[in-house]
């Protein structure tokens, strides 16, 4: 053991000073890239990565069936009667024409739709340096999905801002709301590009479900048909729609899309990507990629239907669907809804509430939670193409043409209904046949989010919905006959408050909303 010496002291000072000054590598110490995530600038360096960028746009569409087609479109229509007397839910406000700019569902849908637009724009910018063969296909998919998002945006909110590139925070505050006609033109451009660049089919099974040329043409036709109706009433769009529809109709085959022999089969997961022109893809497995619609549309499931029960019954089906108005002879009725519950083992029958079970594959296994059903959700069914084609032909001729009647009859026959003839009262006049097509569309596509848009496009929304609300909101809560007369402002929703607040005064709220 040594006594404390000057030498030790020197040593201590040296060490201490070293501690004080040992900062040589400090700059590196402060650069800590994210441990858990990649950053964007290090990505999109290969075809695989660009493809993963495309996949993420499709991912954005996973919320469409719920947030657009079910909570907004279907609830707004006369296919659902939501009761406001029990638990407050946004869809009840949608159903009862009570939405405000603060209704959270509107913000959620708006955000989801613009997220699709954003991801499509990112892809188009990041794909610029590449020249591989699928470049135009990828761009076509991005623009198809962007148009799909805009189609909902413009139909729900009217004039909406057109965003065709990624925006900085400052730029995002200064995009004006584009006139409705401009939005439609934007969609038409996107879809034309998609039509020109998407393949007619995909080879590998792993790519099945991506948008095809036919999907783009069918959507383009639907956009044109909507332009022909309310609010643009653009007569020049009708022949354009006809041309696209004729192409898609001619392309039907066993390997592309077709009218399923049995209506109920369309919604089974085994038939995913078999009959429809374009579907949102879902898969079970608890990874967040499952279909929430069967659960959302169900109300009270017995466990032999699903271990994941629906909500407490806080919305109902209108009498027009479950009563005698829709005769049982229509096979679609049994495939669409249930009002009795039959136990498959005991055979016991119990009376249940009428509820949509169209998308519920009763007793299917592998479902991990209530938003995890495997079956796809159709965006454009081939039946839609058929009925749109019939509608276009009728509008063009001003009367029910033989081809139009044949087209409608394809749907009716499959449903087990008697075919129309030239002598049927439904084909007697333009008005009668229009009504017949609209009615056929309602029963064919009930619970698929089509009805509201059909009513608006054909100019029937205000009269139909006012009468419907008067009749169905008999509950003390909404006052039955006190229900107000709807008007034009009810045909679109208010812009979500938060979006208006980003740059106050820059956008005007839609008329009639607080």
């Amino acid at each position, binding site marked *: 053991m040594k006594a404390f010496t000057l030498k030790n002291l020197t040593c*201590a000072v040296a060490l201490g000073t070293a501690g004080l000054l040992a900062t040589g590598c400090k700059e590196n110490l402060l650069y800590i890239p994210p441990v858990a995530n990649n950053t964007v600038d290090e990505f999109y360096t290969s075809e695989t990565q660009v493809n993963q960028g495309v996949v993420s746009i499709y991912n954005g569409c996973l919320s469409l069936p719920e947030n657009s087609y079910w909570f907004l479109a279907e609830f707004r229509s006369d296919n659902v009667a939501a009761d406001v007397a029990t638990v407050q839910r946004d869809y009840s406000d949608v159903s009862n024409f009570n939405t405000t700019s603060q209704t959270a569902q509107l913000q959620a849908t708006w955000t989801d739709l613009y997220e699709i637009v954003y991801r499509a724009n990112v892809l188009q910018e990041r794909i610029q340096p590449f020249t591989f063969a699928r470049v135009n296909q990828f761009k076509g998919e991005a623009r198809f999905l962007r148009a799909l998002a805009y189609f909902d945006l413009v139909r729900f909110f009217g004039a909406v801002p057109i965003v065709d590139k990624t925006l900085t925070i400052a730029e995002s505050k200064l995009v004006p709301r584009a006139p409705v006609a401009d939005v439609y033109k934007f969609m038409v451009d996107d879809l034309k590009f998609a039509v020109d660049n998407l393949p007619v089919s995909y080879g590998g099974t792993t790519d099945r479900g991506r948008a095809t040329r036919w999907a783009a043409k069918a959507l383009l036709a639907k956009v044109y048909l909507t332009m022909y109706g309310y609010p643009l009433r653009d007569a020049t769009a009708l022949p354009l729609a006809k041309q696209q529809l004729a192409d898609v109709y001619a392309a039907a085959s066993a390997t592309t899309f077709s009218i399923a022999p049995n209506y109920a089969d369309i919604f089974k997961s085994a038939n995913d990507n078999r009959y429809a022109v374009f579907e949102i893809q879902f898969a079970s497995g608890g990874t967040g990629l499952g279909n929430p619609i069967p659960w959302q549309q169900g109300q009270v499931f017995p466990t032999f239907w699903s271990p994941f029960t629906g909500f407490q019954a806080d919305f109902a089906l209108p009498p027009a669907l479950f009563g005698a108005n829709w005769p049982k002879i229509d096979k679609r009725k049994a495939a669409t809804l249930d009002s009795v519950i039959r136990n498959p083992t005991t055979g016991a029958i119990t009376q249940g509430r009428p509820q949509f079970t169209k998308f519920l594959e009763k007793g299917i296994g592998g479902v991990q939670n209530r938003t995890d059903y495997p079956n796809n959700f159709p965006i454009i069914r081939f039946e839609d193409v058929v009925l749109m084609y019939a509608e276009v032909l009728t509008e063009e001729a001003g009367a029910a043409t033989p081809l139009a009647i044949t087209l409608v009859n394809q749907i009716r026959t499959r449903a087990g209904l008697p075919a129309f003839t030239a002598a049927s009262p439904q084909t007697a006049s333009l008005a009668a046949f229009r009504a017949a097509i609209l009615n056929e569309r309602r029963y064919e596509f009930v619970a698929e989010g089509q009805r509201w848009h059909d009513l608006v496009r054909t100019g029937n929304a205000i009269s139909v919905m006012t009468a419907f609300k008067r009749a169905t909101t008999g509950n003390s809560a909404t006052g039955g006959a006190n229900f107000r007369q709807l008007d034009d402002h009810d045909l679109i929703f208010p812009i979500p408050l938060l979006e208006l607040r980003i740059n106050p005064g820059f956008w005007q709220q839609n008329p009639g909303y607080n």
Partner: protein
Amino acid sequence: MKKLYCFGSSLVLLLWLFAGQALAQSKPPVTITGKVTADKTNETLPGVTVLLKGTSNGTSTGVDGSYSLSVPGGEGTLIFSYVGYVKREMALNGKTSISVSLDPDENALDDVVVVGYGTQKAGNVTGAVTGITAKEIEERPVNRIENALVGQMPGVYVQTTTGEPGADLQIRVRGAASINASNDPLYVVDGVPVDNLRGINPTDVANIEVLKDAASAAIYGSRGSNGVVLVTTKRGKKGAAKLNFSGYTGLQVAESKLDVQSAEDWIQMRKEGIDLDWVAQNPTLNRATDSRAVRLQRLSVNGTVPVSGTNVLRYTHDPKWAYGQDSLAYIDWQKAIFRRAIMQQYTVGVSGGTDNVNYNVNGSFLNQKGIIIGSDLQRATLRANVDAQVRKGIKFFLTLAPSMEWSSLGRVDGTGGQALNAAQMPPVGPKEAGIYVGADPYTTYPWSGRYISPVAVMERTDANGTRTRLNANMGLNFDLYKGLQLQLLGAMDNTYFQDQIYTPTNASREWFGAAEGSLSTSRYSQTFSTRYLFQSVLNYNRSFGENKAHSLNAILGYSVERTGNDFSQQENGQLPNDATYLFDRANSTVNRSYITSGKEALISYFTRAQYNYKEKYLLSASLRRDGSSKFGDDRQWGYFPAVSAGWRVSSEEFMKNVTFITDLKARASWGVTGNNRIPNNSQFALLGINNYPFNGVSVNGFSPISIANPGLGWEQTASFNYGLDFSVLNNRLQVTADYYTKNTSDLLYRVPLSSLTGFTRTFLNIGEVFNRGVEVGLNSRNLVGAFEWSTSFNASYNMNRVEKLDSDNTPVPTGELPGGAGFASLLQVGLPISSYYLYDAIGVYQTQAEVDSEPKLTNTRVGDIKYRDVNGDGKITLDDRTIMGNPTPTYLFGITNTFRYKGFELNVLINAQQGGQLYSVIGRSVDRPGMGYLYNHLATWNNRWKSEAEPGDGKTPSITAQNASLLDSRWLYSSDYLRLKNITLGYNLPRSRFYGSARFYVALENAYIWHNYTGGFSPEALQAGGFDNGSYPQARTYTLGFNLAL
């Protein structure tokens, strides 16, 4: 990291080098003896330190106050020191017997306070620093040290946001400077910054200082903006080993209950709902007075069709209602989940020291049952502080502080928590189910909604958290040259937290019809947090000049900190049965499984100089440079300067004759601090996983999930402080007063973005906030003598105001309700942070005439909530929302009265706050139109609007009123309260040879509270966003405790 290891091994090397013996003494020893007594009372004083001046040779007095010390050569001076008494020096001058009496120390100015990277004499402090000592902490049964700070310090707002055992308390120093980054102060324990004060036994603490102004906190640079809480733990003192025991046992009961409808009220309201539906079913025929038989008859279409179960429930009363409690269970759910709960803590400690080694070792165990069934906390702590003089001029110090917490917590707070569930549960159930209604094997009550008993949830779910913390540091102190010291410190603070929660199927409200195990989930999460620090500080301390009139202290330091966080979580569902929470892939399905990680680094250089001339003119200046990994490339480094000055007026010649003023000091300071508490990686545009299943097979997809922001930097607060300290009447009255301004710029805010960017939120440095306040602290010894009475009072006022937002001052909505249900508040220039921005509910439209004639929303009906037409345009629109207050209280008060007589001591602490508001989101479940009849409601709904003939109390709308999604002032409450926070009656036993000191006490914590908050359990229950989401109620605790020193 490598560097830290390098320094760690250097320290070990140094230890080895310098381990050796102290220099031997050579002169012949003389034994000095004597006795130490207290002045005036002549009480003998045990434990007084007796030290030969200039050496480490010393002893301490025994229980009778006598001592005996061997002094080489019998020459020199003895120093007698004892806590709370004035130090006294006696020259030996050949005497061998020296007895002294010590004066009680009435001048606290000579106390030493801990400041950043050092200590300072209290009298020389030029910033705004406030603190409490061990006495205030030890003598009360507190389970978290923050609790001991409530109401004790001006400008320090301690809020118990949840009553959950062991939960963090919220501390705010001088208001809120930040909006989205954290407003939590920096916690520093024994010189080492830590994340929180969890796992620290309150009885380990010697003192707590809070650095409030920027000049004091600027030495902590980019983390000093919210103030700094410095905790110093007890260290050993030279003397015979002392054994300390302390402990308490308390009984806790819930402090308050929500006033909800009774079973009778609920049944009455339910009947009314059914009757309305019945009449609406066929308005021409049906009447509310129709009997059940008539209704069933009509519903069955005069007996031809069986009545569906749904219709029976919808249109008819339960016949059992007529029989009341005989046939149904009437349940007070709050009573059902609350319990009287025991809390106890025991501490054992040993402290003492020899010439070269001092030590203080404390071990403690806390066992606290929660006042809600199924919640509890146990905590064991150990803290060993060791100081050793290794050689002359070299000191070694060490702290080892492992702690463990075992808890069964969670499930109570917030949306979906059981506190809220208990409030909204229908108070009626089937007789056989009782308090287990809705839980396996009992179904829900048919006439109510779907739910599960909170009792069943709390009992059947299994939540276990284990938190292991190891806080350790070790350092060396070298005396390099006259007054120049070098301190090297290496520290780590590692926490391992494992959290397991098991929810069996029989604790699910969907259990009915579900197979056993099918709805079960079992989740296991692990968090491992690490924090390593190396720090070296050169300290120069010198007095010079004539009579050493000039005194200088200067430091120069460097530190590097690295923190890391590793998190993993597994959750499996669909277990085979309800028998076990353990799972593997073969018998369950994976719900989640992931691993994530984060890292951070902070490098700092700092320096400070403190100078005084005759302790009359005081000057201090400091500078820190921080570099942080959390910010964008453009703003990685920042400077944080501070200066302060003080003038002790009372030391001036001209004050000599002003005898009633004992001390008078004026202070002024300015400094710049920062706030870097935002999540890591906010500066990067990160990529997120967004897969899609083509044809049923998941395909990987990636897209950006955030926006890049290279300019992201810290918030910067520039603060002025002006203070005055004075004491009069021989220190009988001491007053400290401060006025401050704080200007925070470059506010970090997670601003809402236009959805057009593809995102909804990002962090930006967007604005400026101004805070201004006044603080007064007052200590008065009202009565001295046999009966002593002293009062300590503090009051603070703070206001804040948003000065600038973004580039164009666009108001920013804040306070987003859970579930995206809108924004309750906003940031707007000229207003306090997070001002509530709501429709002002002024009543109910009582008649159709009112609806027709008064301003209204477009769809208004009679019975709806009436709003104030703020802009007077004759209709109610979005523009009629108005500013209704903000969550930050303007005034805080605390007053402690202490009475002493003989061995008795009575302490009464009252605290109060005023001027803040609280938004009760609990209202969404129990106080909202449209919530229906099925669940329970606040008792006010008994007086709701029913019809023009029965308009109710004029404030509660119709149950079917519209526009329930609008956020209005009905849920806004004042958070003002006055609380009798603590009453402690202690008795100090007379001295005895069996023990050094002994004290027993009874205490009542949260004795009583006066407030007007009826929307939740506690006016302090402010959770993230500024709401009360239903929090764990606070407890009133009756305690019996003791402190014993042997």
